[in-house]
């Protein structure tokens, strides 16, 4: 047995030795090594560097389409669950759950704003800055896919600078003066009295509005010459010279506008420089006009023009101009968001926005009747009159006389969804379901018409916006979505607005307006024309006219919401406050209306329609307070002690 004992002793010693060796050998405690993609490995190769630029694009997004609850965290994806149009007078989101309603009810604030994800914007700024700071580390080589020359490098840096400036712009129009982030922020841990606290460099304090405007304009100026006029087809969607000019133009227009071109901001504040330019300087209009003209000049010399195609007709030309980015006829979009592409049938943006196809009942978007009354005109450009009560037949005939751009954005009971017939087999024809009140003007509602059942309460606000969604594919419900960020039409309107402020009656102003009117299907402004005669030489009336034209032309494209702020008219009755109206249909007597069918002949249909009347009635009273000219920062961020909250919040 002795040998065995010795053996055991040996065994023990062996194990002990093994353990000792193991302890001293860090291989046992295996750790990952070499598989990490560091910033150096990203920027030591042009292909990888381009991926960092793609990431900057993916996070510097302006996208008015909702893509789901919270817009999938996009910086600007409508309001939560809806389009931003419903948060101003051009629209409404039916039901109390719609987040846009918070803006109308005045219940939004530092802890509940639901429109702008500031974190997404700052992360876009960060990603663009990472590219800008590191692009010069990339060796000048040709990888086969990318020929990384000094010129190409400068171009990509310019793209990233515009993206970063665009994000600053998006923040600036909401908050006023904001922190300027012109380098990659880094975390610094400091030990304060035994505890570790984090701070960020550059420090996250707000800069004056003037500096922010200067920063955006400077970013544009630095980049314009490095950017190309156009990209190959496979690169469409990247920043062109035109996008830089456009960003500069809208920034300078903002700086010239009444909200900020003043010494006293809309809300009194201890930090006026954050909210206004510090003085009222009419010369800013001239700068803005020049920037708009530069954009237009660049556009026209590069083949851009408003889409006005005879085969499409006026309404569909306008419709395609915003929605069909890649339609060869469309030369109007200067810069657009490419993050969507084709959305599947039943995607949130279709369900939320479409009154018929996949109606979500309580979140459909509507056009308030008071907005229609004050904004849209008839086919001849004359004001329309919609009486408070009338027959369904009368209502239909008024609607039919409306100008083409109205037909492109609105659907009313008994109308076809689109003129090109898309969606007709989904109930989008003129017999599609709508609501009438049974028996009397106060009766219970019921759904009438053909097509799929409307969910929930249907579409009680009467007239529904269908911009963007009326290009839905008839057979599978898909739609191609590209949010227009800069569309040429805007710059004609910017230019006209600025020229009018410089001095009334400028022929270039009339010319710019006429370009818009011509495509809009309205008679051009010329001597003898009633509108022309009114506004020519009258700066105030011309201003009102241009604002109205802008409301129509840029309907639903997230302009109205900011324009009423920029013009400082949000507080006016019917703009962001006061009574809002809808129309409601009701039967003249019990049970007389029958569901219309396509088989009905015109006479029967008319007879049927005559059994129904309409009534205009208020549906809500909206609330405005001047502090709402500037967004509140999230309370949590203010609490961190770096950001000064906007006044009143």
């Amino acid at each position, binding site marked *: 047995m002795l040998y065995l004992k010795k053996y055991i002793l040996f065994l023990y010693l062996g194990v002990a030795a093994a353990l000792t060796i193991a302890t001293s050998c860090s291989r046992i405690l295996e750790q*990952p090594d070499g598989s990490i993609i560091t910033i150096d490995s990203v920027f030591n190769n042009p292909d990888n560097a381009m*991926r960092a630029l793609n990431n900057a694009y*993916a996070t510097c997004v302006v996208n008015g389409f909702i893509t789901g609850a919270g817009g999938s965290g996009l910086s600007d994806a409508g309001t939560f669950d809806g389009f931003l149009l419903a948060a101003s007078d051009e629209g409404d989101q039916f039901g109390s759950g719609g987040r846009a309603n918070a803006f109308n009810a005045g219940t939004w604030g530092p802890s509940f704003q639901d429109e702008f994800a500031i974190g997404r914007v700052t992360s876009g700024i960060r990603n663009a800055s990472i590219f800008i700071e590191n692009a010069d580390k990339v060796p000048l080589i040709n990888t086969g896919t990318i020929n990384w020359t000094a010129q190409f490098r400068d171009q990509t840096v310019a793209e990233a600078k515009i993206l970063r400036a665009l994000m600053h712009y998006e923040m600036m129009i909401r908050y006023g003066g904001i922190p300027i*982030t012109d380098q990659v922020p880094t975390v610094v841990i400091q030990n304060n009295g035994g505890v570790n606290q984090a701070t960020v460099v550059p420090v996250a304090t707000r800069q004056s509005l003037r500096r922010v405007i200067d920063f955006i304009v400077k970013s544009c100026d630095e980049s314009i010459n490095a950017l190309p006029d156009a990209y190959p087809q496979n690169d469409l969607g990247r920043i062109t010279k035109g996008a830089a000019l456009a960003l500069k133009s809208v920034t300078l227009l903002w700086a010239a506008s009444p909200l900020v071109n003043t010494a006293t901001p809309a809300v009194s504040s201890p930090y006026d420089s954050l909210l206004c330019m510090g003085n009222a300087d009419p010369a800013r209009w001239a700068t803005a006009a020049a920037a708009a003209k530069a954009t237009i000049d660049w556009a026209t010399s590069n083949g851009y023009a408003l889409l006005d195609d005879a085969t499409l007709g006026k309404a569909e030309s306008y419709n395609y101009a915003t929605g069909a980015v890649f339609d060869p006829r469309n030369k109007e979009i200067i810069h657009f968001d490419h993050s969507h592409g*084709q959305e599947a049938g039943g995607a949130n943006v279709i369900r939320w926005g479409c009154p018929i196809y996949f109606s979500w009942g309580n979140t459909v978007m509507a056009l308030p009747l008071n907005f229609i009354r004050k904004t849209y005109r008839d086919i001849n450009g004359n004001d329309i009159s919609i009486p408070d009560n009338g027959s369904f037949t009368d209502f239909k005939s008024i609607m039919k006389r409306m100008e083409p751009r109205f037909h492109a954005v609105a659907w009313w009971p008994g109308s076809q969804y689109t003129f090109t017939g898309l969606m007709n087999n989904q109930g989008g024809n003129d017999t599609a379901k709508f609501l009438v009140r049974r028996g009397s003007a106060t009766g219970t509602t019921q759904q009438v018409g053909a097509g799929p059942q409307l969910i929930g309460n249907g579409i009680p606000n009467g007239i529904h916006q269908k911009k963007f969604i009326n290009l839905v594919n008839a057979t599978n419900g898909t739609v191609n979505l590209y949010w227009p960020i800069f569309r040429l039409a805007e710059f004609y309107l910017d230019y006209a607005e600025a020229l009018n402020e410089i001095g009334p009656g400028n022929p270039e102003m009339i010319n710019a307006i006429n370009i818009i009117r011509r495509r809009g299907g309205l008679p051009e402004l010329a001597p003898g024309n009633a509108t022309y005669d009114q506004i020519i030489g009258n700066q105030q009336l011309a201003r009102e006219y241009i604002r109205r034209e802008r409301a129509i032309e840029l309907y639903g494209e997230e302009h109205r919401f900011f324009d009423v702020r920029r013009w400082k008219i949000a507080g006016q009755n019917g703009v962001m406050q006061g009574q809002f109206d809808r129309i409601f249909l009701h039967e003249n007597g019990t049970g007389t209306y029958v569901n219309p069918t396509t088989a009905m002949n015109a006479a029967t249909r008319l007879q049927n329609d005559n059994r129904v009347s309409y009534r205009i009635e208020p549906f809500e009273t909206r609330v405005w307070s001047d502090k709402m000219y500037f967004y509140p920062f999230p309370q949590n961020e203010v609490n*961190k002690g770096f950001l000064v909250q906007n006044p009143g919040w």
Partner: protein
Amino acid sequence: MLAKPMKRLVPFLVSPQQMKAIRKCLLFVLTFCLIYQVELQAQERTVSGVVTDNVGKVLASVSVAVKNSDKGTSTNEEGRFVINLTENNSVLVFTYAGFSKQELIVPASGLMQVMLQPEVNALTDVVVVGYGSQKRVSVTAAISNVKTEEILRSPVSSVANALAGRATGIIAVQRGGEPGRDIADIYIRGVGTFAGGNSARPLVLVDGVERSLNGIDPYTIESFNILKDASATAVFGVRGANGVIIITTKTGATGKPQFSLSSNFAWQEPVRLPETLGAVDYARLRNTAAQNDGSPSLFSDYDIERFQRQDDPYFHPDINWLDYLIRDYSPQQQYNLNMSGGTTDARYFVSLGFLNQDGAYKLGNFFDEFSANPNFKRYNLRANFDFNLTKDWSIAIKAGSEISNSNYSRSNTSDIFGTIYSANPMMSPVLFEDKIVRNVDGLTALQISNTPLYQLLFNGFNENFSSALNLNFATRYKLDKITKGLSTRVMLAYDSYYLQSVLRRKQIPLWDLRRNPAATNFQDSAQPIAVVNQFEGPISFDGESFVKNRKAYGEAAIEYTNKFGLHNVGGMILGTIERRYDGSNQLPFNYMGVVGRATYNYDGRYLAEVNVGYNGSENFAVGQQFGVFPSFSLGYVISEEKFFPKTDAVTFLKMRGSYGTVGNDKIGGNRFLFLPSSFQSGGNYFLGINHTNMPGYREATLGNPNVTWEKAAKLNLGIDMKFWDNKISFSADYFREERNDILWQLNIPITFGNPAIVAPYNIGQAENKGYEFELGFTNSNRKGDLRYWVNANYTFARNKIIYMDEVPQPFPGLEMTGSRIGQMKGLLANGIYNTADEINDPNRPRSQWEGTGLRPGDIRYVDVNEDGLIDDNDRVNIGDPNIPEIIYGSTFGVQWKFLEVSVFFQGAGNVSTYLAGEASWPFIAGTKTAFSNASESWSEERYKAGLPITLPRLTASPEAGKHNYRQSSFWMQDASYLRLKNVEIAANFNKSFLDKIGVKNLRVYLNGQNLHTWTKMPFFDPEIPNSNGSIYPVMRVINGGFNLQF
């Protein structure tokens, strides 16, 4: 010679071993008769008997002494003794290590059946400590234990569910009752960290290796110890801060084969289910809600009449979903057969266990092809062997295997119960001629979703098979030859775990019910016509998943213990290494370390101990992987001092204290946070007319090169006492812990870009302190046939967040710093506005959520910051955290002859549960369920009549964002409770007649778990988590069984 007739006499005996036993018995009886005769003839009489322990196991080598004489003997291997007495000697004294001394008067018959009771906190008790064991008397650390027999009283599937209130320091919460998934969450002395995930959970060791507590067969547990303070857990270094549970499985005892067969059959029923409204009440109250909202009634008088008459089961159904879907009782069986025995050189314990737990869904077996009802089967096999190869060399092999086979509906339990609580009573007739109904004419407005039955079935089922294998090989070699008291040991362990989960589903046939168009009267129109909505599909495979883990563990130690006069010294140096592969493609998880321990005691009076853990893991940067965790403890047994009065009043008094640091590397499940900042694929954008997906690189993490484990500095002060001849024992501990370096997200301004990519830093600080005490009393009459005992224990632990780099808040009540971990914030409700005057009071604070104005029946909140506005800034701490601060338990037992009754009460205090959504609010979304208290919602009539009001005015759209449904104390429930947790009535038949049939002991018992609960919590079991109530209910278990030893 005797064998043949015996065989005829007892034909039911089959095994030769038992025959042998019977033969011996018979021999014994004959011998006994002879002795008896002898005694009759002489003045001196012979007394004989059998000594067993409290569960009937015979005890060998029990000292049997004649009182007031030097005469004595001891029991043989079969527990028997024979002693001759003179008339003067009438009292026998039985003593045995670990058991209470018993003095018994010799009965006239001279036959004695002696049952010794295990001593409570016996001085000779051995306590399992980290990497070893110690005599309880010399322990200076805070260690408590749960007795196996107490665990066995609870007819529960998982040991974890039997622990609450059984020992100090354990805070256990059982959140639900689904078979196989009902395992209680366990914390030792509360929660010491807020790092999230499982970071506050204790380390659980089974036979010295980190293993799950869940699958253990309770019949195989030898000891269950809870290590609480730094002195006890410092040796576990980076893993010890949350306390350690050490479970040791049974090993064989020297002797003949002992068989033990246990059989249990139990009924489970939900402890508590909410009472939901029937159709008539639902319709009426829903109409009231609509009226309150100013919207049209949902139910006409006609509808209500039909509901009342119950004569239209298809178009006016009235379903109580809980009754419809939940069984009154579901069965559970548990069996165990084990065998132990051996010689001094080879001992074995082999155990086979089986558990079968059935779920509560009534219609889970609607289709023949599958069951959506949970079922959990567990097979436990264990074989533990000990061999003494030589005088100095022993080895131990412990092999355990847990195999489970379980079946569940593929729908999440929370979805199933969520749907049950989302369903109104009239949404669907559910079945029509055994067809599952989808749409019903006229019910569309109420039928917003599928029925709970469909929810249960349509996802199909999920079949799981798991097998876990645990192997320990340990060997010990005594090195007394080198120097006395030196020994060395090695333990190697290998665990593997495999889980296969198969998902199968079928398209469920659905039918729509239409009204009969030909109907001319009500009877005909009430008989629907069924139209296919969805066709039936075949069972199809829908995916499977695997989990494969394996772990290797090794430890090697050199131990030393010796005595020099009155100086007792001990020491240990041990190395450990562990490598675990979790089955995914991750790098293995590794631990390495060295442990040192030195103990010293002087004459059992002055005790001192130093423990040091030095260990680390792969999870920290090179150079910062290892940490030193020292602890020191002292003890003073005053009762051993000469000056201490030797009376029966105070027989033992020990004071002890410890201080040390321990680590916790369960820092939210993060790995390799020290790695440099990195990028990852992602952030793709689209370019070009073909919408080409352009790949991106985005930042993944910003590294934290200094990441480290949490550090806990723990202080423990304790006192142990015994009184009244050791009949009463008392133990109390005070503890205080400061936890530093809690890994926590930095407070970074949003302009940084994406704060989420910044790795967390070790910045958090928390403290946790409390006390616990334990009181035991046990007594028996002189005859030894009546014994009674009381045990009580109480644990209180309260934590506090000291620092967490929190975003500064405008009002102190909003800050988490200074609050307890898991503290909920909310508005402070102060009743309900009852009158229009209260609403119109110009001084009434306005609510941010009042919209067009509040109305009577709305909740009144306290304007905490007194700014005239009720908003989120008025939030303060509401209620207690969801994990109790107080857990207590008390056992009362009495044993009279063969009968034994024990009653166990357990309670919890300082705990709240937030019930929101479906669990509290009637008519969510206008159609969801309403509990019976909907009738107690505010109305002017109720207010004026002075009737109890428990809900604000009804509305058909309660939403979390609305004034009445904001997170507030109104919906916070006091979840403290007192339970009649366990009652057991048992009969121990260990009379000698059992011997005739080869049975040594038969114990028959009836016990029950969760028998009655006293709580303020409405509708649900108080242990459910903060939720909307969609939890599988905790079960009450009534169990009958027997244990047979032969």
